[in-house]
């Protein structure tokens, strides 16, 4: 009985293994090509993931991960009770939601407008201009806006005062700072984000327009009944992707623009992690905040992708 079982095992499993090993050995040089990439992946991606365990420690840089004391969920309990964190979380959601609500429709509008503009030179020129800010760093964009929004000598405030208003210190005002963030984010990326919709419009079957025109549909009607439905899957897909990034309210942007006066309204999870971790050297708590962020982000992206698969039949991977 025993003998026969081992025999059958030998017959099935080892043969598959042998086949795989043969392929592996024949392509050894192919696998060798993976070594540097895997080395990179382990050191710079997976080792930091292992480093996350300091979120469950009272980490001390001199004792290292091995020598630091374990504290279990203490950092997460601290996090849920922290008023500061609650404020930061609120800021993150608010800024993100403002950006989505106000900025998401703009690239679609730009794509529709560009589709209606028939003069090629005009279209090209507009596209060349509006794609440009995408390639500039946030530091440069901040530099530009710090300049034009300055209270003394900034052109925006000059216009305000010449119209009889009081100068507004946009970058030092908790009432204004979020609006500045939303506006500059739109200014930088709207043109670029239109590309995906322009491509989607280009993919619509042209015959539909011809027959609609024959039936006497105006261009506005064609836009409404052909173009918009034609790019609807793309719109839904991009929207879901955007929701997946909900917790990234623009860390790099805010880091280059904000200052302690406006922390109250603009400190978001990403900037908070930086301030607590590297400013106050509270590595463990900061990592706990980061982990909280990554886990929710992960869930959002995965569920977004599921949704997208179900409703549009397209997914990110």
């Amino acid at each position, binding site marked *: 009985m025993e003998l026969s079982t081992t025999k059958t095992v030998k017959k099935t499993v080892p043969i598959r293994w042998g086949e795989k090993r043969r*392929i*592996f050995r024949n392509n050894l*040089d*192919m696998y060798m*090509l*993976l070594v*540097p*990439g895997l080395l990179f*992946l382990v050191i*710079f*991606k*997976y*080792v*930091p*993931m*292992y*480093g*996350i365990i*300091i979120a469950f420690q009272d980490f001390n*840089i001199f004792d290292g991960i091995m020598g630091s004391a374990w504290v279990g969920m203490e950092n997460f309990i601290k996090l849920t009770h922290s008023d500061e964190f609650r404020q930061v979380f609120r800021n993150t959601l608010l800024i993100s939601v403002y950006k989505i609500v106000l900025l998401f429709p703009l690239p679609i509008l*730009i794509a529709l*407008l560009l589709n*209606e*503009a028939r003069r090629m030179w*005009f279209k090209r020129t*507009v596209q060349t201009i*509006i794609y*440009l*800010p995408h*390639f*500039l*760093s946030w*530091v*440069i964009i901040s*530099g*530009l*806006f*710090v*300049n034009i929004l300055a209270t*003394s000598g900034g*052109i925006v405030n000059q216009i305000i005062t010449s119209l009889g208003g009081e100068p507004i210190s946009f970058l030092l005002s908790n009432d204004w700072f979020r609006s500045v963030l939303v506006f500059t984010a739109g*200014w930088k990326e*709207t*043109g670029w984000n239109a590309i*995906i919709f322009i491509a989607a419009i280009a993919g619509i079957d042209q015959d539909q327009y011809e027959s609609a025109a024959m039936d006497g549909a105006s*261009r506005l009607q064609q836009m409404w009944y052909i173009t918009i439905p034609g790019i609807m899957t793309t719109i839904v897909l991009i929207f879901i992707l955007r929701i997946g990034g909900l917790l990234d309210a623009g860390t*790099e942007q805010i*880091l280059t623009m904000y200052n302690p006066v406006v922390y109250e309204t603009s400190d978001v999870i*990403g900037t908070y*992690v*930086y301030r607590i*971790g*590297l400013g106050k050297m509270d*590595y463990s708590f*900061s*990592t706990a905040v*980061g982990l909280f962020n*990554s886990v929710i982000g992960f869930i959002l992206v*995965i569920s977004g992708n599921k949704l997208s698969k179900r409703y549009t039949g397209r997914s*990110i991977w």
Partner: protein
Amino acid sequence: MIKKRFGDRVLDIVVYFMLALFAASTLLPFANVFAKSVSAEWAVISGKVGLLPVDFQLDTMKFVVTSSPFLKSLTVSVTITIVGTILCMLLTAVTAYPLSKRHLPGIGFILLLFVFTMLFSGGMIPNYLLIRQLGLMDSLWSLILPALVGVFNLLVIKSYYENLPESLEEAAKLEGAGNLRILFSIIFPLSGPVLATISLFYAVYFWNDFIGPMLYINTPALKPLQLYLRDIVMDADTVQMGINRSVDDMMNITPEGIRAATVIASTVPILLVYPYLQKYFIKGVLIGSVKG
């Protein structure tokens, strides 16, 4: 059908007007800041500069682009961008090849290991601690090594390889060529467009990287342009900048003008390569969106 309808003509006007408005709102901030950077001191101070330069001068610009911290940080940025892009391209283009052979055992799993890092990462502090542990603080390698393989870029190149005709590889194999040989003498030459696109992705990443230097670089001499620019914009310590300058040089110069000129000078390198960027980036974005 030749005669345009009234409604369509109104639509035309609205379309051209709105697009022009949008393009203008993109250009105006640049125009204003550029005008400031080349206008005379009195005009900048009294707030007379709008969209056109007033009493044109190049002193501020000259002062900014010849100041040694600017030139140093420019050199640092150029170095990182060139070295970083070359290393990234080598590693990414090579790694993508075995990953494009999905039929090989284990490849699917390794691919999953890469993709997972797109969705989940250690985060800022564990990365920072790793760089410290590796002794890379205040080294330019701290900016290059953690970025060597961008997974998105890897996937774009991989899917390009997958779409190459297999017959060429098979023919080479019959001649007895090894996989490495095939990669370098057949696959790479056929992948020119995608490799060019991804190189630009990496180059722009390195050029614009700000968070990396902010976390890992403290030595002033090693600060890339973005970090230097931030220092200038946030608190222009112009007195210190001008400390070795003669009074003559300072004649036309205001802190505001210096800030404006530094912003403009940092924008120029991107403007110079912009035609290529625009062309290849759009291709790359579309490849990535069709098959991610």
